[in-house]
């Protein structure tokens, strides 16, 4: 997957570049709007991460010019989260936006969602190591032992398991599992993860739910 980052702030640009490279993407970085637009038109990217405040040609103009030629998905980054600003971006043809400051896990999740866009069907049966999840019957079995989960615990497990290897931020989890759509300053997600681990990880040797410190949680089989 090839990504283009258009970001003028040197530190932010470098870290986004590095972070996305390390997450397995092929990443190009442009420092100005004009460079970004030229690259976006010359190359075929799967997604463009576009900062709005750029010297010379701002993100809006880049987006407008790009949309005359191409339909590459665009995720824009903005430090101003006025409703008008967001609406403007989406009207110009951006596919999603993220307000600064954002969590890196959140950016990754948004990028993956945009790249996955299209008819996605959730698997009915998810298998991860010796863990089996029957989504339709809401049954969880690990190592042949049936595990009873509450509805929310199941929703949390399902969310993590269907996106293995992907770090999910706390706010994303709160929104997806409990439909709580504001950044709350509680430790609800940590508590819920702790309780989920108690049931599906603690009795077993291999751990599947992992904490990525400072970012969130992910599920994968590690050697």
């Amino acid at each position, binding site marked *: 997957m090839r990504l283009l980052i258009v970001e003028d702030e040197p530190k932010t640009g470098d870290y986004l570049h590095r972070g996305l490279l390390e997450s397995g993407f092929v990443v190009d970085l442009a420092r100005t709007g004009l460079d970004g637009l030229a690259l976006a038109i010359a190359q075929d990217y799967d997604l463009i991460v576009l900062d709005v405040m750029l010297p010379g040609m701002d993100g809006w103009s880049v987006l407008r010019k790009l949309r005359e030629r191409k339909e590459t998905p665009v995720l824009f980054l903005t430090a101003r*989260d006025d*409703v008008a600003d967001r609406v403007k971006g989406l009207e110009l043809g951006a596919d999603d936006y993220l307000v600064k*400051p954002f*969590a890196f896990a959140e950016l990754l999740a948004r990028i993956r969602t945009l790249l996955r866009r299209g008819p996605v069907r959730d698997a009915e049966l998810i298998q991860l190591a010796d863990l089996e999840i029957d989504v339709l019957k809401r049954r969880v079995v690990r190592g042949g032992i049936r595990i009873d989960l509450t*509805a*929310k615990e199941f929703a949390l497990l399902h969310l993590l398991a269907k996106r293995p290897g992907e770090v999910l931020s706390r706010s994303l989890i*709160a929104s997806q599992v*409990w*439909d*709580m*759509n*504001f*950044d*709350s*300053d*509680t*430790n*609800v997600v940590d*508590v*819920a993860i*702790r*309780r989920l681990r108690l049931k599906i990880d603690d009795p077993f040797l291999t751990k599947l739910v992992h904490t990525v*410190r*400072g*970012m969130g949680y992910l599920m994968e089989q590690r050697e």
Partner: protein
Amino acid sequence: MSAAKSLSITARLALLFAAVTVVTFAAVGTYLYQALAQQLERRDDRELIGKVMLARHLLREAPSIGDVLRDPHPFIDAVFEHPGLILRLMGPDGRVLVQSTPPSRALLPLPVSVPAERNPLASDIGNWQSAAGMGRLVTATGHVGEGMPESAPVTIVIAREGSNQAGLLQEYGRNLFLAVGSGALLAAIFGFLIVRLSMRPLRSVIGKANDISTLRLNTRLTVEGAPTELRELGTAFNAMLDRLEDGVQRLSRFAADLAHDLRTPINTLMVETQVALARPRSIDEYQTLLVSNTEEYEQLARMIENTLFLARADNAQLALHQEKLSTRIEFDRICSYFEGPAEEAGVSLTAQIEDVSVCADPILFQRAVSNLVSNAISHTPRGGTVHLAASESPQGTDVSVDNSGPGIAPQHLPHIFDRYYRADAARSASPQSTGLGLAIVRAIMQLHRGEVDVNISDKKHTTFALHFRC
């Protein structure tokens, strides 16, 4: 239009004064003019009638028509001293017996002659077209030598040329016009001066208003001694200044609080990082530092988000998407969200089962109730309870979050909804709290035109109640 709008009140009032004066003077003048004209005409008519009576009397005393012809002087004398008056006597055969000054034009049309048996009235007088304008004219029958052998009827014609009173009236009209004009001018000038004088207190208001800036908001207008209307304005103005001063003070306090609250996490970040960099450390230590830093960053980001939320709520910039919500569904969601933390804190979290509908923005409702529940759980001692309830009343819906616990000390009660206020100094060390939770609850309720209040019962139960209207 714009020129009329930009006219000063003084000029506008002076002009209005002048206009009112012109209209009033003109109306009164016209009335007086008409009255004078009528009076003049009545007087003239009485004179005509008087002359008819005199002519009849003179005729009666003359023995015969021949005597009248011989000595017409008494008749002529009757109108001699009256310029414009004309007398004509005509015999039974229509022959002119006596004629004073000849009329300027033919005396036409002659009105019907008043019979000798009665006196002429004003209604018997007709108009005729003289050279100088409309004249008046009357004819009556008189008898020469009444009771004498040669007695005969004589037609008396008395007429008046139109000129003399028309001239009088014209002059009167001219004077009137001059009077109206100069009166209006005077009224405009006096009006201007008077208005200017009465506007002086207003000018002092302007002076004071120019004097006021955010740095000098304590200036107030002196209301005593001002005219009633201006006193009202002054009082309203002062009340506005009170509100502004309050708002500005709150804003600067808010900015100061924000800066102060930013200092703590930034200080932690700085010192922690500098200490870590002072000498080489293990990878583990670096990782621990970065994680700790991330927590501080997240805290900062949350503070910024919450502060922005409050700023927007204050300016009513947040769009409210009100819907009919079911408290049962919302309570279920919130309870399931806080189930974990409540259990870990050893607190039983329950909600009223009976469903009540409430009209609110779904996300803001969640946020307000969640903030209260989160606070309640952290302030309830192990073994305590937190209960959500809702009830409907004609005034709206009340949603309450009740928890057992030590309650809130009375000295903190007035401040708990203030931004960055923390009742428990030790608890401020809790890394997740921004000190804005209850301020946000209050802001959300204000957006909904509702209220939030807190009540502490004797049994040490703390109840936060949200009053939603509708």
